């Protein structure tokens, strides 16, 4: 790690001011991604602003039935919170599918949203990488790209967003609350992360100097009709090759509201709300599930080593929809897929 100076913020305003005064600074939450990247010198901030003392740990009920999760609530605290387990079990399940108990204890809600890709070349400071060093090229295109994107890929960067939690948040129509030098604002979850476009170095739409203060989860009608299905190289403590967060509101065997978010397939947690809406009022069943999977994967394109992800994603979507429709969400302990 390269030397840096250390600054502890006691209030959100202080953190924002410190960020504004030090363009070379980075915020430190759980540190599980930032410290890792600093050890590899993928990032080397001149200053660290520790935000762990900010009063952003609370999980609170809002009058409209929504739940507000503070940006510093740990991944464990959220996953095991009784209200989250009862009203947003999809979120709890997705968090428990990721990382390890130790990492989830340290990792925070805000940090999870801002974790960076696990593309091998992004970590390898000797390799060209447009995300780490804009304009240097993309080593994954034509290189080792088994874990890379099949949707929304781009000639500048084919990396994927690695989070499990964010896939569930995308399905749950979450709102991200941020605060910056210009004041507070809200960002719809699907607008928070971005496709690589011509600025692959930017993972999200946060403006300079803004910090995430919390998330707001609106109430949902899914009950047990949800699942988080994660497919990976080993059964635990591994990032997703493909993951699916599915939730369906069903009435008399027909789809009222369909949500399917995909992880491990794109530069952002992937959701196609237009495609979802085409299936309103369709009968629940295998042929509908197959059609949904085909529809969501229109335009999917492999890069060679990751071609297998297209059929993996198709099968995972069908399985996930079956689990969600049956009200039998994937068990994150017993990994057998029903």
């Amino acid at each position, binding site marked *: 790690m390269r030397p840096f100076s*250390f600054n502890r913020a006691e209030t959100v305003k202080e953190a924002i001011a410190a960020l504004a005064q030090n363009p070379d600074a980075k915020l430190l939450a759980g*540190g599980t991604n930032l410290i890792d990247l600093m050890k590899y010198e993928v990032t080397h901030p001149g200053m660290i602003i520790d935000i762990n003392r900010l009063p952003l740990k609370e999980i609170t009920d809002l009058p409209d039935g929504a739940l507000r999760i503070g940006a510093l609530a740990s991944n464990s605290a959220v996953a095991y919170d009784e209200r989250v387990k009862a009203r947003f079990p999809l979120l709890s399940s997705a968090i428990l599918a990721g990382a390890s108990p130790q990492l989830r204890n340290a990792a925070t809600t805000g940090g999870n949203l801002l974790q960076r890709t696990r593309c091998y070349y992004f970590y390898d400071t000797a390799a060209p990488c447009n995300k780490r060093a804009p304009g240097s090229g993309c080593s994954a295109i034509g290189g080792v790209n088994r874990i890379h994107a099949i949707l929304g890929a781009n000639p500048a960067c084919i990396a994927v967003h690695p989070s499990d939690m964010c896939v569930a948040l995308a399905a749950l129509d979450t709102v991200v609350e941020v605060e910056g030098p210009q004041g507070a604002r809200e960002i719809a979850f699907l607008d928070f992360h971005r496709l690589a476009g011509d600025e692959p170095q930017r993972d999200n739409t946060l403006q300079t100097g803004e910090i995430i203060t919390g998330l707001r989860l609106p109430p949902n009608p899914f009950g047990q009709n949800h699942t988080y299905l994660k497919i990976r190289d080993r059964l635990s403590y591994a990032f997703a090759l493909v993951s699916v967060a599915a939730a369906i509101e069903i009435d008399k065997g027909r789809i009222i509201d369909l949500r399917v978010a995909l992880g491990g397939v794109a530069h952002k947690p992937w959701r196609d709300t237009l495609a979802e809406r085409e299936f309103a009022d369709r009968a629940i069943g295998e042929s509908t599930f197959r059609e949904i999977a085909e529809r969501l994967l229109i335009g999917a394109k492999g890069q060679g080593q990751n071609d297998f992800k297209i059929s993996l994603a198709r099968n995972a979507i069908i399985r996930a929809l079956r689990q969600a429709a049956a009200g039998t969400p994937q068990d994150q302990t017993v990994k057998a897929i029903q």
Partner: protein
Amino acid sequence: MADARSPDLPVCNISLSINGERQKFTLHPWTTLLDLLRGPLELSGTKKGCDHGQCGACTVLVDGERINSCLKLAVSLDGAGIITIEGLGSPNGLHPMQEAFVEHDAYQCGYCTPGQICSAVALVKEGHARSRAEIRELMSGNLCRCGAYTNIADAIEEVMDTQRIRPVKEAAE
């Protein structure tokens, strides 16, 4: 305490309780908790496996919660209480989890063991594991290159059994 600082580089003053003893430190901010423990504090029971959060060998308890000490800056923990393997028990007064690991031969080379034991102690306290499958899943943050997993799970199961906190008895896998 030994001072491993270089002149002219930033330092911070913090205090930590290490295995029950409150101590003051002057540190470079980039010192990880793991390097503080193994270096100046000479508490080498906590191991460095990967140094990147991928193996669990560096697991310690911070205010009772298990974390990977390789990914924590010591300065960010100012005021916290740290328990390492050295603080759980002593050769003459082993912690029940240490005893169970010995009894079940839950190691071969022993390199992952301090991390496994700290992790297992936290797992029991967290109370989310109620079956052997859940023990295995919630211990998945601790890798063992020697593959002592079966005996590790046996040791943890025994501790949970004696503490009567495991209502569901399952057949071993």
